[in-house]
């Protein structure tokens, strides 16, 4: 009777070969780019050779001035995302747990949700100028939605048998919310936060690009981009941004695996 679930292991994929294939893809793309530019098929001021960009990227990663800009963007990102969590999680719980609250606020939510966050940039500039507040307001707005909707979904769709189990043992509605609905919704909330983290980074850099300010990756790109004809640094900055997004996602995905192994195992089982 002691048949064990293979749990968190994904059966159909071999992790080793996936990694090698991915590496092969990156190396090939790099080689093609390098060949195109070295053969002077395109103007080097538009597309510098891949190796040049790579070297510039490495230099940027130890450049204190650039790192200061990165830190500024990341501060706005972290604050904005943190605020979004503080706002969206309780709201999502209220909407998900109390149907009346949800129905009452639904019209407003459906009206606000389709507004692209970038379309709010002019309004945000008018309201907050070009400082941190302006960046934060945009990041907050954009990251609230994925967290809010995942939380509503997670709390609303708790298994009725799980709730009946708790009710059968005499637990009241608030205890059931705390002891059953919230833990069971937690993986969905987390997924919302993971999606929001990516959105927040996009918004942070877009906001910096569109309204300058004095600090941030976007601001830095505007500066180095307008200062010279050489685009190498802009490309290198773009690569760093990509790496940043990758790193954030990697950290959050590994957190998800550790925290919610039970959720993955269950989804694999059903």
């Amino acid at each position, binding site marked *: 009777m002691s048949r064990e679930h293979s749990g968190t292991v994904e059966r159909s994929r071999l992790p080793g070969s996936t990694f090698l294939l991915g590496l092969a893809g990156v190396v090939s793309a790099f080689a093609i780019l390098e060949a195109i530019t070295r053969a002077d098929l395109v103007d080097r001021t538009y597309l510098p050779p891949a190796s040049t960009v790579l070297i510039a990227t490495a230099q940027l990663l130890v450049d204190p001035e650039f790192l200061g800009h990165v830190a500024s963007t990341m501060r706005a990102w972290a604050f904005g995302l943190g605020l979004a969590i503080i706002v969206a999680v309780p709201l999502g719980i209220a909407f998900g747990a109390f149907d009346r609250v949800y129905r009452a606020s639904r019209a407003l939510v459906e009206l606000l949700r389709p507004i692209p966050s970038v379309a709010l940039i002019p309004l945000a500039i008018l309201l907050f100028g070009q400082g941190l507040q302006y960046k934060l307001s945009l990041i907050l707005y954009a990251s609230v939605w994925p967290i809010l909707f995942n939380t509503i979904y997670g709390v609303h769709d708790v298994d009725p048998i799980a709730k009946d189990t708790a009710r059968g*043992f005499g637990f009241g509605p608030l205890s059931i919310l705390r002891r059953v609905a919230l833990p069971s919704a937690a993986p969905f909330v987390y997924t919302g936060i993971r999606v929001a983290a990516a959105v927040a980074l996009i918004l942070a850099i877009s906001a910096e690009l569109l309204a300058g300010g004095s600090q941030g990756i976007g601001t830095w790109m505007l500066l180095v981009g307008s200062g010279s004809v050489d685009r190498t640094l802009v490309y290198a900055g773009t690569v760093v941004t990509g790496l940043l997004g990758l790193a954030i996602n990697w950290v959050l995905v590994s957190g998800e695996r550790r925290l919610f192994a039970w959720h993955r195992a*269950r989804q694999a089982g059903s």
Partner: protein
Amino acid sequence: MTVTRAPRPDLLAVAGLCHTYGAGAVATVAIDDLDFEVGQGEFLSIVGPSGCGKTTLLRCVSGLQHPTAGTVTLHGEAISDVPEGMALVFQDYARSLFPWMSVSSNVEFPLSRLRLPRSERRERIGESLAAVRLDAAADKYPWQLSGGMQQRVAIARALAYRPEVLLMDEPFASVDAQTRADLEDLVLDVWRRFSVTILFVTHDIDESVYLSDRVLVLSRSPASVVADIPVGLPRPRDQIETKSADGFVRLRAEVARLIRPARGAETAGTSI
């Protein structure tokens, strides 16, 4: 119809119970005027065709659902909400156990409301897990266990709550035949050791006769009591001995015959 009074004082009584889902033209009558009593310490099985309203009945008895009419009384007091002293074991153990909690935390879950001292909680968890022979799995998670083991965790959780009445809703319908036989004997064992009253809903005729003191046969939907059959088979029961005894074979045939005509009538009814 055989109406036999239990030899023990009544613990639980169901009187004039009706339940209708929806209203008006779309109303579906799930239960139609059910009356029965369960004696203290009795093992009562409720058997009926699939979808006849057995689950609705159990939900009404447990207080999870308010019946449209009629009463359920425990110790002579009408149940209006989930009463103390009742525990439920659902068919779908995978959805009833909390996957984010270890086996021992799942068993501890109902105790957390009772504000018991830590030592007593520990003791009850140990005792319940030992009763279902899962001491070794205390630190595992439900989803790391087989189906039969998961249902044993659910039984241990119910036992830790020390209920007077254990309500079981087709608890073994989703495990294989061998596991099912093992679980049946396990339930008989804990029933005897914990001297709990068990209300066991099933659609399996053999299971109902094998386990019970009395079998309540329900009709096809809407559910009403077709017969109340005392099972006089000696205890302890044995999967092979009991199931090959003449008395067992006679009883299962009797229950089967009672369920069959109900099925025939339903077919006749739909063909009109």
